[in-house]
């Protein structure tokens, strides 16, 4: 990530920005674990934990990151986006989605399961590519 302009005097807000990124990361990890557990055994987690609350928290943190990022002129360059697109974590993300999709369709016809899973993975892949493509 390249900082275009950062107000070095506003260290407090930069700390908040960094911490919010950590919180977002932790919330996403929680969401991934929870989604995976729920995909394996429906109702296992949702009986204890509210998905709505986690998702609302993620959006709230994202909004706060956006707010502090904008205030402190923090933005991504095209180069960074390209890196993100090539990121190996994308493969992990797709594998994760495939697992969830597959488990959620357990019991359905095999051909339907495979067709829907591939359809879903390609859709997500192209949405990802469209959002983070190097073309501005």
């Amino acid at each position, binding site marked *: 990530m390249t900082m275009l302009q950062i107000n070095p005097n506003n260290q407090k807000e930069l700390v908040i920005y960094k911490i919010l990124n950590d*919180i977002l990361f932790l919330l996403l990890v*929680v969401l991934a674990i929870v989604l995976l557990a729920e995909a394996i055994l429906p109702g*296992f987690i949702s009986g204890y934990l509210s998905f709505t609350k986690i998702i609302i928290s993620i959006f709230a943190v994202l909004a706060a990151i956006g707010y502090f990022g904008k205030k402190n002129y923090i933005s991504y360059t095209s180069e960074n986006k390209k890196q993100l697109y090539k990121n190996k974590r994308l493969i992990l993300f797709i594998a994760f989605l495939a697992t969830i999709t597959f488990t959620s369709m357990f019991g359905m016809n095999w051909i339907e399961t495979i067709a829907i899973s591939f359809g879903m993975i390609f859709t997500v892949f192209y949405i990802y590519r469209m959002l983070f493509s190097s073309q501005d």
Partner: protein
Amino acid sequence: MLDLTPEIQLDSIWKKRYFFLKIFIYAVFVIGGLYFSYIILFPGEKFLFDFSAPDKKTTSIFYIRTPQGTFPKNGIITGKTSVSFDTFLAKDFSQVNIKLVLSDDSSPLENGEIKIKKSYKTFSYPLAEKPAVFKTGMLVKNNGNYYIVSDNKLKKISSFKIAGSLGYEDASFTEATETELNFSDKGDGIANDKIYPDDSLFNIDNNYYQLKNQELRKFLSQNAFLSYYDKNMAITKDKSFLIQYSLSQEAIGFADGTLLSFDTSAYIISQGKLRPFNNPVTFLSFGFAWKDLVSATEDEIGFYQRGKIFEIQDPHPDGTIFFVRDNGKYYITENGTKKEIKGENILKSYRKNNPIPVDDQSINTASICVIKKKLFGTRQKYNCHLDIQQLEKFPGNNYQFEMQADSEISIRQMDIVFSQKINWFSARDTLSEIKNKIFFHYDYAPN
């Protein structure tokens, strides 16, 4: 340490602050994770009752009553008078915590204690004075004498010749002892081979009928008939017999307590209504066995108006048989009482489902805890914590509480929390339960 925004560089003093803040945030998530794991591995169940809103839908403590059977209005309990209440659970727990919050104007609670028992609600019904008798419609014989139970009375058929003329075969009659016959009220003898007594059973063209008030009532199906009687108890007749008696509009469904399965659902017949189980855990919590499920047809299910869901706090239907493991006795439930079945042949006449195992000890063994005032807080809060491991061995889904105090009190709210002790065995049980749920979800049956 993982830095997700390495491009943003901070001054050394802020770097330090960020470091500690980050440690704190990660610690919060780790502690949260550990707490969540604790909830998953050692799950508890909470039950509530709010006396200021007794009709609240979230109420989960049931049958709050004084010894006279009345509900203590506004939570007022007279000194030295007991109040009983129930909770229903499908799982066993090793400890329980009961919290009482008294009204602001209530006198303090003095010398209070709570007794806890575990059994089935229905098995705790009072014992009926008279033991169970042969089911109406039954054919019994003793010492060369033949009887039919008609209108709940034992009626002697004057001779086997009469019985034969009526169409009965010797094999249709169940052997009974003299003692078993003596439990039944006696009715007038049957000496006429032209008139069938009420409750006689007929098989006409593979349809089953019972005579009620001299009208023929058809059984819904053969399965429905078999939920009451054996095939050989019905006299075989041809269609011309239907002209002799008028046909009732009412059909006879399955016997109360019959367990039915249709598609992926399980149902129970209770007070003549078809009531679905909400999940397999509730089904098993009543002590029912899967092998007792009768596979029903669409027509049989369609015969009934669907009743509300059969929930864990519902009593077993009338006709449920309990087998007491510690004394070998059998009981049958009927109209809010339980009747002892004294006699093997009477038992046979009822035993269409497997009896539900119970322990006599369970209704006589209570765990007792002393109610103590909570140290902190301005409100009048009291607590009673108890180890209930000794109750685990008893079958049942009903925890029965009986509370008593020396002073008159007014309870505002009552909370009961069941939990597991933190140990490897509890964690292992939960993990095993999760494993079984996963197998069940993916239709996998481990060896």
